[in-house]
């Protein structure tokens, strides 16, 4: 079968009929690449470090590097079990749950922010109760985490679910029949085999959390994260004022993509 599989690839390797779609797609790729290239060229002629050491930029970076990992951790701890249940179990209302998982992905971030405000805003019962015991749910780092988690958690759920779904359930059954309970089986078999997918999902969630802008603007305009700081700087100083912080964010993004590619999982997961 291995030969057979390679046969298709080999046959495809000289398919002239793919030239037209490749040319069409190339235009889109060019449009993706052009802004990147222009951005990098422009950044090259800017004093990066000086601007990054300004107190506002420093603080924004600190806030982002604090909140995004926390949001990712929350999304992973609660999302991976959910992903496993969705991959393994059918139950009444499953489509509703699936819809709920996808919703934050398609709800515009500003609407998501508005929704969070209606739920935990300062003048809601929940928000005022929390604020009165000294835990402000908006305009605080907690608010940032709430916004990021809402918007970014679906990525790790969906990707981990794909990973669990790709594991033949019989591998788990074999483990049970070899004497391991459900928890040991999950730890010994399901988790190691889905590790790549879970990591890819965490990386996507982290990237989305780092870049979160719309919902954060509504829920916690202060304290600033990198994206909100970029906006403030942009209002004040235009494009050149924001290049250093944008580059910092972009650098983190590049790291993320490199990690995805090195894990080698995203294309697979996305492909199948």
């Amino acid at each position, binding site marked *: 079968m291995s030969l057979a599989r390679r046969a298709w690839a080999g046959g495809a390797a000289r398919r002239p009929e793919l030239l037209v779609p490749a040319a069409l797609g190339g235009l889109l790729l060019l449009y993706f690449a052009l802004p990147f290239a222009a951005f990098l060229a422009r950044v090259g002629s800017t004093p990066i470090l000086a601007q990054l050491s300004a107190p506002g930029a420093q603080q924004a970076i600190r806030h982002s590097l604090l909140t995004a990992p926390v949001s990712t951790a929350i999304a992973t701890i609660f999302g991976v079990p959910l992903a496993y249940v969705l991959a393994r179990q059918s139950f009444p209302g499953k489509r509703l749950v699936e819809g709920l998982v996808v919703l934050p992905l398609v709800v515009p971030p500003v609407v998501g922010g508005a929704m969070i405000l209606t739920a935990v805003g300062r003048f809601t019962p929940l928000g005022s109760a929390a604020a009165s015991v000294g835990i402000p749910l908006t305009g605080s780092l907690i608010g940032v985490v709430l916004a990021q988690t809402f918007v970014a958690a679906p990525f790790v759920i969906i990707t981990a679910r794909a990973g669990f779904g790709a594991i*033949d359930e*019989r*591998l788990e*059954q*074999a*483990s*049970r*029949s*070899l*004497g*391991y*309970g*459900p928890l*040991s089986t999950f730890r*010994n*078999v399901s988790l*190691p*085999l889905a590790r790549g997918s879970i990591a890819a999902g965490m990386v996507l969630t982290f990237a989305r959390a780092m870049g979160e802008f719309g919902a954060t603007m509504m829920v916690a305009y202060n304290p600033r994260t990198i994206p909100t700081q970029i906006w403030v700087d942009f209002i004040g100083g235009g494009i050149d004022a924001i290049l250093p912080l944008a580059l910092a964010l972009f650098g983190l993004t590049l790291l993320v993509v490199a990690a995805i590619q090195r894990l080698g999982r995203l294309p697979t997961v996305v492909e199948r």
Partner: protein
Amino acid sequence: MMLNVDGLGHRYGTERALDDVSFGLDTGELVAVLGPSGCGKTTLVQAIAGHLTPTAGRVRLRGHDVTGQPPERRAVGLVFQQSTLYPHMTVGENVAYGLGPQGVDPDEHEAIVDEYLDLVNLADRRTAYPNELSGGQQRRAELARALAPQPDLLVLDEPLSALDRALRVQLRGEIARIQRETGVTTLFVTHDQQEAMELADRLVVMHGGAVAAVGPPRRLYESPPTPFVASFLGRSTELPATIAATEPLRLAVGGDELTLPDAGRTPPVGASVRCLFRPHGLSIRPPEDADAELSGTVRRVADLGRRYDVTVETDDGTALVVERRREPPAVGEAVAVAVDAGSVVAFTAAGEPIDAA
């Protein structure tokens, strides 16, 4: 009894997958569950191994009712058609995996793994990963892993169906040897009657979720209880016939008459019966041969190297396959076909066997 399956039934929604399935396995026995796709074999395996709770009936292991027990509480080793070797563990680690829950002293794992890898002739692939093994080696590693914890029962669910014929025949012999050497009680599930008959002490033939027959291969082959069992256990051509006389039992088939060995109970003269002819119980004769019961025209000759399969179309249009070892007749030739009465199995119109006493 090592395994007792008692009145097992299962439904998926409104669809009945298993219907009142009962049989047992003695210690050390190798029994094959044989049936076509969709006959409920897989559901049966899942219920015995504990991965599914049947909607009716009980499963007993060593006399203990385990119907409600999770799989990890039953000592059932399981090998599926697809490999379930863990890709993130070496062959040795895979084989050792089942030893932990048995409370085997970790110091002994190494020796046990060696022993079972030796048993399946895989000692030199201990540090390999499953994806580095050939298809046959994967099967053998899987057997070693299932056997290492010394299960009460080994269930092999179509273990050879995904393999090439040559490898399948080879591994069939390996499984027989391994079962002989370990003495493990084995349930071998397959759709391949040749595989089942070659390996098993007894067969459980399944059809439509129910047990169609239980017994040793030879008895089921020679005295099948239903036409389904008769045709599933070996090639045969069915011809309609009627009872011409009862003592001795004579059947009218295709214009000729055929005398069968005395039967215990027979339908009355004139009743319709279903006759199944085995290819090896038929022989080609010159046309007009006085002893031959049937006549027809040769439609096709398949050369199988060792023998020829000659397809003869009888005068009423039925295609009859006849085995022949010598030079076959030519296509288009008119021939007579003699029937070895001992190889014919006959059933009433309702499917009751007419027992050749």
